[in-house]
């Protein structure tokens, strides 16, 4: 695939292991962490409920948090009716009536938020409940906060990606336009004079260099961009590419052997790069129209370099 510095380790894993080479095991690949879902290890299974909690949406998490507080409040209140050991406000037990229910829920909130005023206190087995609620409240609240923070962060990264991409696209478009205009004036000169003066040849070389850079940018965009631009954008970029390539092909054809080594090298690397822009090779699937213009680029590339 064009790799120039590739070597082969014939022995492979068998030879490596035989000679006491250290072996690494992993649950997921380094290069493609999303490609394989590894079976959960012991560790992650032990904390599965915690992971489940962290996977909930923000709204659900807040719901779980409120639900837990109300449920614990009801337990505190119900314990007062059923077992006789309930909450105490000051030194008097909280009565199991409506007023008592409010007190129980109030106590539940104070506990879950780890405030602990101490005006209402649990007795007997309720102490254990209160501690469990305090711990669970902290955990869930922590999840809520982390959700909030990471959501904002994700938005920010996405925005940054988008702005850098937009800037890049702007630059590529401007440069393509520049290349196109320059190619046009070179072509005109050629028609008028027949042979290109050295100065114009150098100009052509630099134009080819700029074009190569932008071709690389488009190539990267098609191959490894995390934020793929929409098809319209790609379409206009490819159309620009085709026009510039056509100009280059025409100039190259009429120049015949009168090219400089630098120009030849530039054209050759353009050929290599453009050769990889074809409908079948790019990792994403695009509409037939786009594939067609990609193939057009490939065909044009074969005529230079």
């Amino acid at each position, binding site marked *: *695939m*064009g*790799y*120039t*510095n*590739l*070597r*082969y*380790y*014939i*022995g*492979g*894993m*068998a*030879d*490596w*292991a035989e*000679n006491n*080479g*250290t*072996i*690494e*095991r*992993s*649950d*997921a*690949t*380094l*290069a*493609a962490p999303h*490609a*394989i879902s*590894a079976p959960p290890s012991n560790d992650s299974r032990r904390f599965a409920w915690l992971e489940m909690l962290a996977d909930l949406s923000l709204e659900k998490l807040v719901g779980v948090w409120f639900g837990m507080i109300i449920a614990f409040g009801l337990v505190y209140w119900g314990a007062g009716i059923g077992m006789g050991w309930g909450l105490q406000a000051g030194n008097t037990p909280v009565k199991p009536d409506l007023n008592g229910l409010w007190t129980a829920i109030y106590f539940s909130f104070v506990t879950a938020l780890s405030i602990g005023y101490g005006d209402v206190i649990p007795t007997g087995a309720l102490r254990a409940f209160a501690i469990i609620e305090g711990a669970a409240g902290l955990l869930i609240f922590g999840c809520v906060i982390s959700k909030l923070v990471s959501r904002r962060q994700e938005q920010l990264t996405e925005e940054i990606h988008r702005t850098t991409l937009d800037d890049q696209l702007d630059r590529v478009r401007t440069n393509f336009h520049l290349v196109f205009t320059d190619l046009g004036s070179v072509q005109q000169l050629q028609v008028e004079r027949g042979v290109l003066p050295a100065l114009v040849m150098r100009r052509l070389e630099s134009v080819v260099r700029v074009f190569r850079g932008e071709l690389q940018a488009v190539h*990267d965009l098609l*191959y*490894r961009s995390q934020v793929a631009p929409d098809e319209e954008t790609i379409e206009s970029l490819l159309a620009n590419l085709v026009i510039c390539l056509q100009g280059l092909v025409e100039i190259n054809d009429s120049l015949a052997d009168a090219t400089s080594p630098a120009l030849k090298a530039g054209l050759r690397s353009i050929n290599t790069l453009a*050769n*990889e822009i*074809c*409908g*079948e*090779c790019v*990792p994403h699937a695009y509409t037939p129209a786009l594939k067609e213009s990609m*193939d057009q680029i*490939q*065909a044009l590339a074969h005529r230079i370099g």
Partner: protein
Amino acid sequence: MVKPQTLAPALEYPTISREEILGRLRDRALVIVNVMAPDSFNAAHIPGSINLPVADVEAKAPRILSNLAQEIVVYCAGPT
């Protein structure tokens, strides 16, 4: 349309010795590529190597190894 040529048979490439890999395990300039299936890769691989199954080479190589001049070592299960 024509695709760029795929990985040619391994014999056409120069080989690398076990010792050299061992000595350069921490060298970031050397990318070690394991072309076995993900399951085999997970079970055992040379430390620091990345997994790029043969079946995925064409689709993923340009993204994972975008630099054509990158120094790369390829290996699989054994001397096949």
